[in-house]
């Protein structure tokens, strides 16, 4: 199987947006170079070929698993890694919106920034974003009930508003700051934030865990403190988050403060933070 490298010829920032759905490692790597170059994608309502925008390079002929590398300023290109299920997709540069949306497996690694709805409805696999991402990361798509529902998402930079809106399962680790309404309507799952949180943290949260290490406001009036020994759970969570490294590999053994809520809805979620 080929290991492929697609190099964008011109920056994509302006103009009609390109939709890269279908361009996954598993779909492209078994194809010949010509077939890859003529692979159809869409720009607005027009069809065009991958080769119209990208140089197709072959990195290796005998890759064990499908590997695809995208290079360039892809800010005007949406749905990169859309519903990808296996293999490795690397992006050296920035991504547009809907990056890794609906991803079910494999590995997606981005060395730049990503747009809105990054990892929305992701259900499996691993995603790592070195830079920032826009609003609604790990959220649900409009009209859908559940946001991120599995897998692991690590964001090294900052996230916009509505991070993990309606998130249901999986682990999201954010090293930077979160915008307003992080964990809004969260159904379950784990969200860990190293930086500061914006306004209205965990608004309408039903279940799940939010850990805040950075600055945050007092818990809203629809959250209430509990004072029980939950060190067993904390040590399981701490060991799991340590996989993300950095500050999460040095979480203290003593359990954090715990608040349950949002009592306006189900009230079984928990906010965790230290003094």
């Amino acid at each position: 199987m080929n290991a492929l490298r697609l190099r964008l010829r011109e920056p994509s920032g302006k103009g009609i947006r390109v939709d890269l759905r279908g361009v996954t490692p598993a779909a492209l790597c078994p194809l010949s170079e010509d077939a890859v170059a003529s692979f159809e994608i869409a720009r607005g309502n027009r069809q065009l070929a991958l080769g119209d925008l990208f140089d197709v390079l072959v990195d290796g002929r005998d890759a064990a698993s499908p590997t695809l590398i995208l290079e360039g300023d892809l800010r005007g290109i949406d749905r990169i890694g859309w519903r990808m299920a296996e293999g490795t997709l690397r992006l050296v540069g920035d991504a547009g919106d809907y990056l890794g949306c609906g991803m079910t497996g494999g590995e997606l690694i981005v060395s730049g920034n990503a747009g809105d709805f990054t990892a929305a409805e992701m259900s499996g696999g691993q995603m790592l974003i070195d830079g920032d991402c826009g609003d609604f990361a790990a959220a649900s798509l409009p009209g859908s009930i559940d946001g991120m529902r599995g897998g692991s998402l690590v964001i090294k930079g900052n996230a916009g508003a509505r991070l993990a809106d309606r998130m249901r399962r999986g682990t999201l680790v954010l090293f930077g700051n979160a915008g307003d309404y992080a964990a809004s309507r969260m159904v379950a799952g784990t969200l860990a934030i190293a930086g500061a949180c914006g306004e209205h943290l965990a608004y309408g949260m039903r279940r799940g865990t939010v850990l805040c290490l950075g600055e945050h406001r007092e818990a809203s009036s629809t959250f209430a403190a509990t004072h029980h020994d939950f060190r067993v759970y904390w040590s399981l969570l701490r060991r799991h988050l340590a996989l993300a490294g950095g500050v999460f590999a040095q979480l203290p053994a003593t359990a954090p403060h715990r608040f349950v809520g949002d009592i306006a809805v189900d009230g079984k979620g928990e906010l965790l933070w230290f003094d």
Partner: protein
Amino acid sequence: MPGMQLNGVTIDDTFAEAFPMKATRLIITAHTAQWAEHAALSLTGFATSVIACGCEAGIERRLNADETPDGRPGISVLIFSMSGKELAKQVERRVGQCVLTCPTTAVFAGLDDGEPIALGRNLRFFGDGWQMSKVLGNRRFWRIPVMDGEFVCEETTAVVKCVGGGNLLLLAGGTDSALRAAETAVAAMRRLPNVIMPFPGGVVRSGSKIGSKYSAMSPSTNEAFAPSLTPLTRTALTDDIHCVMEIVIDGLSDGDVAAAMRDGIASVVELGPQRGALRISAGNYGGKLGPFHFHLHRLASAGVSG
């Protein structure tokens, strides 16, 4: 029966016959090692023989805080049953009554691979709707609110095929020497992983045969090894044998059972005939019932050379 002499101890030319069973390992942790032990002793109580207990269970070993999933001291227990279904029933009952109830405990699956059976999956309903699920990586845990905080248990535990009923018969001149031989052998076997000796103190004095003259009783006393019946029956004993003890071994694989029997034999041989057993034998059913045969001469040679 032609024998083999090692350090004055006779090893019979026979074999132990063992059977396929199903097993799981549970890791019980607690605030202190003592509370983990309370739970483990309770969980593995009344679990000597599948004949009437539903399972055979025992403590495999003590775990340090750095060996457990939650960083607290713990105990690993092995539970053996004749079928996966019966094992699931026993795990649910025993964990529900003996671990869920025990102060500060948590319970985790102790095997990675195998068919999953419910561990916390049904116990969670004790939470009456207040239970919380947590999926971390590919493992699901349940947090059940209880009076000391919360009981954390893993969703499932893995079941593997294993081997039950490996055994040694230690034939001695009297009660003291028979007990000494048995205690020595059990201590040697307990140093090994993946095995338990499910009887009280690891030792059983009521070795049984299949069947009985009474229709209501299936296993009955093995008169061939009962010293009170030496003159009356077709005995397996000689006149110098006045007390016999048996050690039953259940292990996760035939290799584990063989290793325990090997170390048990070696320790009894080392003890010698004056202080311990005069003879070592084993129980079998002619080799027709169980697929696993553990020949004493081979194990004894391995133990001496090893």
